[in-house]
């Protein structure tokens, strides 16, 4: 992190927003996990448990109209951009109340009305799309910024290079955020790259600053996010941020994550971003009641969302042949 970013002040309200964001994301994903074990959520889920500080830090730095694009590990980002918990949990459970009416599932959470422009299930696929949303914002002069989140594994796919290059050449208002959780699926990222930092060590190839931030420290992420987003909004072009973090679970539901050394897991679990932040709030003198109120409200929110999901019917069979085309249907012939 740069000295300039470190100097960005964080208000009390922002600190509470950062904690609230992380707690809401944590509760949502734990509930998605529980509902999967119960059989209500089918297919798969890719949880971002442990990575909430990245989502919360960026969400707090964005304003209305800004857009995000996420990966299949995008529950937290989509929630914190403003999608409702019921619509997200409902989509994970493939219910009619899901944000995608049950057609997308956990890997495709989207709420365009909030600026959550999609969760993409092909690694690297959305970096080029982020070029387009950012280019469009620049063309239309809206001042909107796009933030595009992806994992460390994405840095080895061609679309990463094409996107960073074009974003830099066109000076697009986009922030690329690599959530480096040390593993590309089941393989250590260190085993498949010739440098230490998969994103930051490649930034210079695009004329960009090398930025590494502690992705488990919501304050640090927020400060870097403010700096990068402001830079984009001023028309000074893209940034590439690498946030060091760790997922508490395996890659997806099918993965117990046994390939990770016990000491490594223990060390990162001891650096849980929520624990870090709760302790910080307490040390800064925030009353315990305010902190507990945030947790209580988040639990009530996820309980309410769960009740809505349980009560919601599966998608109406009549919707099978809807929404392929703008006319609402799926006809391909007369």
């Amino acid at each position, binding site marked *: 992190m740069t000295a300039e970013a470190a100097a960005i002040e964080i208000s009390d309200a922002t600190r509470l927003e950062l904690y609230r964001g992380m707690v809401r994301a944590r509760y949502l994903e734990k509930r998605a996990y529980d509902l999967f074990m119960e059989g209500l959520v089918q297919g798969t889920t890719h949880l971002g448990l442990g990575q909430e500080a990245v989502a919360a830090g960026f969400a707090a730095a964005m304003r209305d109209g800004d857009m995000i694009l996420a990966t299949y590990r995008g529950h937290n980002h989509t929630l914190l951009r403003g999608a409702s918990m019921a619509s997200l949990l409902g989509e994970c459970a493939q219910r009619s109340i899901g944000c995608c009416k049950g057609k997308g599932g956990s890997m495709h959470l989207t709420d365009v009305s909030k600026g959550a422009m999609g969760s993409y299930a092909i690694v690297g696929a959305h970096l*080029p799309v982020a070029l*387009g949303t950012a*280019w469009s914002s620049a*063309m239309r002069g809206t001042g909107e910024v796009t933030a595009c989140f992806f994992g460390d594994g994405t840095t080895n796919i061609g679309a990463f290079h094409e996107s960073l290059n074009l974003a830099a050449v066109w000076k697009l208002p986009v922030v690329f955020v690599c959530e480096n959780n040390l593993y590309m699926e089941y393989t250590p990222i260190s085993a498949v790259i010739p440098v230490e930092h998969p994103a930051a060590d490649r930034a210079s190839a695009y004329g960009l600053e090398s930025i590494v931030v502690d992705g488990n420290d919501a304050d640090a992420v927020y400060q870097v996010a403010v700096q990068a987003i402001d830079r984009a909004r001023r028309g000074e072009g893209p940034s590439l941020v690498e946030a060091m973090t760790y997922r508490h679970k395996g890659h997806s539901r099918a993965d117990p994550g046994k390939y990770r050394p016990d000491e490594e897991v223990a060390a990162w679990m001891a650096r849980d971003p929520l624990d870090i932040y709760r302790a910080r709030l307490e040390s800064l003198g925030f009353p315990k009641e305010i902190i507990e109120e945030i947790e209580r409200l988040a639990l009530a929110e996820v309980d309410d969302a769960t009740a809505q999901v349980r009560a919601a019917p599966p998608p109406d069979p009549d919707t099978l042949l809807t929404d392929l085309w703008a006319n609402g249907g799926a006809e391909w012939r*007369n």
Partner: protein
Amino acid sequence: MAELTYRLAIARGIAQEMERDPSVVFIGEDVGAEGGVFKTTVGLQARFGKDRVRDTPISEQAIIGAIMGAAMTGLRPIGELMFSDFLAVCWDGVANQIAKTRYMTGGQVSLPLVIRTANGGGTHFGGQHSQSLESWAMAVPGLKVVAPSTPRDVVGLMAAAVRDPDPVVYFDHKKLYNLKEDVPDGEIVDTLGTAVVRIPGSDVTIVALAAMVHVALEAAARLASSGISAEVIDVRSLVPLDTRTILESVVRTGHLFTVEENPRLCGWGAEIASIAAEECIWDLDGPIVRVTTPHIPLPSAPGLEDLAIPSAERVVEAVLASS
């Protein structure tokens, strides 16, 4: 009314839409300052500026992603892929992202975009710059697919594609760039999903697309001298597909032939043949016959490529053998 080449019709079609709608933008490799490697987009950047007509790096994934993101957020972009063969390097963006996003998001996302690309053989470029790939696009739910055969259709179908609220893959044909015809002045707007009867006939129906329309027309002229009246239908739009025009003709003539530049397996004609077999087999008086390129990559040698791509002779032989 003035004579216009198929090549210049491409720039005219794009210009017509950019003039009408300021949200229409156009990007691709060498399309701006150089006016395209085939000189199909000459003058567009000078007329509409470097912001709206923009050169890109050789980055097809970036081009396809950029037009997708732009279309999601209020622009109506046209992205050019220099050769349709390059679809293969950005097929994720085309087939997994652009095609599926409206459906997968429950209808939240509209993608009013056009992927315009130079398709087809007959120019001896070899196997990676000559393919007819319209059947690839046709096979993916969520993509509309057009392939014009005349200068007028180049303009009209471009307008239809740009104005359509869904993603359209627009295949123009390299072999036709020097084709000329008189084209009316003023705005031309066509309709997706409409086939056109190029010449009426009563004995056999020949269905063709893009450059193969002209092969079919030549075959029809030769068949006429043998006393066979062939109706030639230009499909123009594979998705949506105007089966009504095709089946009405087949029911009347009792004979269906397709002329396809694509390699044999799963070409668009196979779908039309299957529809005819399902829906009007009792009206047929002979087998449905597909005239296609063999199931091989296209060779570069002119003598070999000419043998591979359907010719009027092959169409005439097929008709004489089966009608």
